């Protein structure tokens, strides 16, 4: 046993928190790009494209993120490529985020009033122009709060990267605990650090959430 919790341990946890944020940003950017493509495919006029992305979403949303991480970690290395834990975690979080963000953003695109589409059609704009100039600018505003809300999910779920050995906040907590064996204290501190990262995002998301989050899922009478 290596004594009690000291400032070195705390610095180590803070480093872990920085890696959690880095992994979150990485996954958010790549997951966001892929998710954007997914959402556009979901509203595409091509039936095949809609079905394929729907199946993609169904499969990803039906698989635990943990299994997804293992799948990519082992799967990609089986295919003969060396995968670092960071890459495996980032890939898994990317796939995971793209499916959820794709669905969230599809909802936002579809919630832009029909008349806006029709007005744009009369102008006459091409489909791409309609999307780019009329629909998306309005969808962005609707999408901001639920997107921030989903970032909270990414921060939290990045903790699963610890299972393949990537040293983010949770893994850092495990390492600190291995040396001082005060699990309750260590993981409480870890939890507080996560809370400090997530709460501002949650708060902001809820404050600006109009009717797009869980309240939209409340069925009207």
């Amino acid at each position, binding site marked *: 046993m290596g004594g009690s919790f000291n400032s070195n341990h705390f610095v180590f946890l803070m480093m872990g928190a920085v890696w959690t944020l880095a992994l979150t940003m990485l996954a958010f950017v790549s997951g966001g790009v892929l998710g954007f493509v997914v959402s556009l495919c979901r509203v595409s006029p091509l039936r095949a494209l809609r079905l394929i992305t729907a199946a993609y979403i*169904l*499969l990803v*949303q*039906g*698989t*635990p*993120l*943990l*299994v*997804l991480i*293992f*799948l990519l970690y*082992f*799967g990609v290395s*089986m*295919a*003969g490529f060396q995968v670092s834990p960071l890459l495996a975690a980032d890939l898994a979080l990317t796939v995971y985020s793209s499916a959820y963000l794709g669905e969230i953003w599809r909802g936002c695109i579809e919630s832009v009033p029909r008349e806006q589409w029709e007005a744009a059609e009369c102008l006459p704009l091409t489909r791409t122009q309609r999307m780019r100039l009329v629909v998306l600018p309005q969808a962005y505003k609707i999408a901001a709060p639920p997107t921030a809300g989903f970032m*909270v999910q990414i*921060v*939290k*779920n990045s*903790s*699963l990267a*610890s*299972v393949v050995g990537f040293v983010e906040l*949770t893994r850092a*907590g495990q390492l600190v605990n291995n040396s001082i064996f005060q*699990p*309750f204290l260590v*993981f*409480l501190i*870890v*939890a507080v650090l*996560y*809370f400090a990262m*997530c*709460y501002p995002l*949650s708060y902001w998301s809820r404050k600006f959430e109009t009717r797009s989050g*869980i*309240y939209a*899922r*409340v*069925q009207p*009478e």
Partner: protein
Amino acid sequence: MSYQFEFADVLEQWPLFLKGIRLTVQLSALAVVFGFVVGLLTAIGRRSDTPWLAWSCGAYVEAIRNTPLLVQIFIVYFGFAALGWKVSVFSAATAALIINLGAYTCEIVRAGMDSINKGQIEAAECLALTKLQIYRYVILVPALEKVFPALASQFVLLVLASSVTSQIGAEDLTAVASRIQSETFRSFETYITVAIIYIVLSYLARVLFWAVGLIVFKRRRRLGLAF
């Protein structure tokens, strides 16, 4: 570079998979039932006029919703030990899942309760019903009916999230997978198989909750309203 898929060795382990499925289903079922009860009670607590009660229910919800499940599982698991209680891995895992799901359920159920027309509550007060009677007979069913789709999605997510309990050694489907892959050296095939099982499980869970909705919400069934 081509990879030869070889599922035979993996599928030979089907009794182990079955055991894992059983534990995942048990964990999820317990967590959903008791997590729902916790969520219901804390939703009522959060709406209460007693400031400390409303505040503590709110603090519970925020604490859970803004920290990872994995860390919650560690805290519960080691917390029991710190308190000097000897509990099985299964109990610790179940408790952590209940605490986790309770917070999400609280938020959803509260949204449903808040959406009940104030006039109906007033009418119930005028029928000399007590606060608890009003919750039971006037608020509960329509509130749950309104948020049932969101609630069902949350429950399905929990089935998937229960995989995280493998990290403290619960012998669930994910833990079984890691055992099988280390014995067969067929990790990719193992996790593909497990992913498919989870997809099927979550689909079955969806069907189950849909059926529960039909049974519980008599009015929807009678009027032919779909969820």
